[in-house]
């Protein structure tokens, strides 16, 4: 009864073999990406396989608490992963990141579910889970890039920010430029993808819908909605995490905390 052609597990081997060519290239040129590609590939397969099982169960039961629990789990993992990929980080950033990413993604999903899609029930996992997933995935990248840029900018070159402070700048005057840079960098992937969307790239969700048999015009409207949601989530989440980091690394008496105070190991 499917409107699309099934991909069987065994046929996935053909897709996987394409990756092998890259592994060989990496080994020959000693690029050192072979191991990382293998690990990432294996993780992807296992995670998606498990997700398939979980989603099937959640979709069948379609009960609110199960959807909420899955959403929170996804948000928690996204929040932690976002911080783990930065080159400098302090312990409190994990909590900040999880709180911000869950709040913003849930808020934006809530608005679109209540205001645009209005499924029954409102927590219908068929809509809520994919939306949430896309928002979290994009917010993760934004937070990672933004936080990394901010902490690197402020902490790797303390003398710069402290030079401002020594001249009588407030902590905000000293850090403003770094906050602005963090937001710019955090939003680069989102803005770039919006700029070329439909010209260079056919967005993943739209492609998926079309493959699954949806009319292109419908898929386009869904895509536009999701891109607006993504842009809103990424900017809010990146700003939120950056500002919380700002509040943690500066004291109220306009001093930049030392690496030791923050629990950071700088090499």
């Amino acid at each position, binding site marked *: 009864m499917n409107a699309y052609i099934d991909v069987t597990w065994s046929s996935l081997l053909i897709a996987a073999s394409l990756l092998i060519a890259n592994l060989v290239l990496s080994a020959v040129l000693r690029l050192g990406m072979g191991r990382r590609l293998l690990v990432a590939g294996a993780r992807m397969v296992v995670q998606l396989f498990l997700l398939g099982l979980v989603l099937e169960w959640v979709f069948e039961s379609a009960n609110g608490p199960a959807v909420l629990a899955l959403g929170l789990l996804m948000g928690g993992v996204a929040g932690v992963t976002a911080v783990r990929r930065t080159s400098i980080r302090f312990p409190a950033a994990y909590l900040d990141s999880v709180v911000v990413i869950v709040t913003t993604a849930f808020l934006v999903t809530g608005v679109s579910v209540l205001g645009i899609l209005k499924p029954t029930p409102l927590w219908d996992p068929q809509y809520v889970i994919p939306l949430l997933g896309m928002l979290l995935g994009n917010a993760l990248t934004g937070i990672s890039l933004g936080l990394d840029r901010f902490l690197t900018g402020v902490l790797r070159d303390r*003398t710069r920010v402290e030079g401002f402070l020594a001249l009588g700048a407030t902590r905000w*005057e000293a850090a403003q430029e770094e906050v602005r840079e963090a937001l710019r960098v955090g939003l680069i992937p989102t803005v770039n993808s919006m700029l070329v969307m439909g010209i260079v790239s056919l967005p993943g969700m739209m492609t998926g819908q079309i493959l699954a048999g949806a009319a292109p015009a419908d898929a386009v409207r869904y895509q536009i909605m999701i891109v607006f949601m993504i842009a809103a989530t990424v900017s809010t989440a990146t700003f939120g995490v950056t500002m919380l980091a700002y509040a943690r690394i500066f004291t109220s008496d306009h001093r930049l905390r030392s690496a030791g105070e923050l629990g950071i190991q700088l090499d």
Partner: protein
Amino acid sequence: MPILAAVDLGCRLPSGWIWRGITLSLSAGDRAVLTGPSGTGKSLLLRTLCGLDRLGEGHVLFRGESPRGHDAPDFRARVMYVQQQPLLIPGTVQDNLDLPTRFKVHARRESGEGENGGRAGDLLAQIGKPADFLEQRASVLSGGEGQVVGIVRALLLHPDVLLLDEPTAHLDPETTRRVEEVVLEWVGAGDRALLWTSHDPAQVDRVRRGSRIQLGGVA
């Protein structure tokens, strides 16, 4: 009443106390000198005095009062620390001298002060810099020229106390003398005080008029 006083300051690093029991008092006209081998925490002491580093123990008084936390920018505008390699932003020397006017604390103070335009040129001329120095790009300045910009920038802001961190470390002897002259003239011209860090015994003799703080064991 001293302009700036510090009582029983101590600075603790994970490895132990780097210095302890530091007491100092700077009154109008005082030219205190801070000496000690590299790594004994001279910069740390200056940073602690202006509140860039956490006070391990002891307290700092500005005109008899403990600086309150939220007033830190105002305090640092009065007790100004000049880093050994002062902050330079992209742009010209003039842009760098104007940098502090971006900050609220100076916008407020500037209104009551006179024009700074000519004063920068005068100070630079006194240090032996040509008139077109103001138009030079900050990115091509040598370490010593950067120090000169940092000192002139601080002087233009009319602080009450200057904390100078080896201000002539990268300067030739002639420019060193001129910088000393400009700074000492500034201290003598009002209710001001100076704390100068140096490795050079001859310079210590020329600059010092007031206490000497020696870090790192015996002198």
